[in-house]
């Protein structure tokens, strides 16, 4: 079964229809997703600011990392669960959305950035732990992180807008990126 086929199947389940048409369910879910952002991204930003050497400079980097990480992870889990559930409410349109696709790509990039950072420059953190301003590679990773997350938030917000929806006539490039089918244009 293709991915779009799976989305079509999901869209027809009573779960999806129920959530999509619910009076409060979808709104509450969306609110959880947006407000968890304060926990997840808010603390991730504070951590990145330490890595940039711009805030909480008196604390060791490893201490900031160790203290904030559990909360950041908890927030991230909330984001992923609420995000996945939101997806199940409107699977086909979301899957096709250029904003959703961009958001997912940037999420992967953000994950890669974290992984590279932890496997390389962070390995030697003991050498620069107490420096108010960490080495360049750490700052680059932090800057990239902030830029990617900003992009993720913005593109996530734009998913709700129907400017590039497949059920409206679109430019060829949009149709290609979104995988719009002739049947989408009713």
């Amino acid at each position, binding site marked *: 079964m293709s991915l779009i086929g799976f989305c079509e199947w999901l869209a027809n389940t009573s779960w999806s229809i129920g959530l999509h048409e619910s009076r409060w369910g979808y*709104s509450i879910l969306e*609110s959880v997703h947006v*407000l968890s*952002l304060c926990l997840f991204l808010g603390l991730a930003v*504070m951590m990145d600011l330490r890595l940039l050497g711009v805030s*909480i400079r008196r*604390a060791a980097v490893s201490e900031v990392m160790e203290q904030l990480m559990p909360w950041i992870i908890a927030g991230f889990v909330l984001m992923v669960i609420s995000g996945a559930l939101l997806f199940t409410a409107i699977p086909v349109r979301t899957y096709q959305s250029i904003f959703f696709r961009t958001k997912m790509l940037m999420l992967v990039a953000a994950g890669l950035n974290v992984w590279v950072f932890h496997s390389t420059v962070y390995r030697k953190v003991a050498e620069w732990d107490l420096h108010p301003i960490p080495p360049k590679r750490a700052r680059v990773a932090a800057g990239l992180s902030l830029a990617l997350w900003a992009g993720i938030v913005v593109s996530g917000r734009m998913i709700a807008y129907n400017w590039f929806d497949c059920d409206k006539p679109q430019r060829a490039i949009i149709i290609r990126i979104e995988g719009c089918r002739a049947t989408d244009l009713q």
Partner: protein
Amino acid sequence: MSLLPFFMWCENSAIGDAIRSSGWLFPVIEAVHLLGLAVIGGAVLVVDLRLFGFEFPRQPVAQLARDAQRWLLGSLAVMIATGALMFTSEAIKCYYHPAFWMKMTCLFLAIVFTFTVKRKVVMADEARIGPLRNKLVALVSIALWSGVGIGGRWIGFS
């Protein structure tokens, strides 16, 4: 005294008009509002979690608060500016929406609380403020700021 004339004036302002007639201005302003939300969330939570005793046991809370202060103020400024802009584009809807009043009340209380009671408790000598009072302050802070966020989301639903 009715605020309705003021709200109508805002709604009919050139800015309100411009945002309403543009297809992309509101989304962009709202996106910036969301980014500000992340920063203010972090600035508030890093201190509140410390007050709860959940993190940074070895860092004095006063120093953490001082570090977070510029981010709190900066993001608050961004939130108020972008919020005001969005407000002008739908002032009448806000006037009649209970969520808007809830949000503004919580915002006012949150700001007052943060810069009076919370500030006093955070900057005081830690030996003098018992852990229970710290936790209470953190709880009130989170409750008030959450009220702002929830009220904001509620406005968006109708």
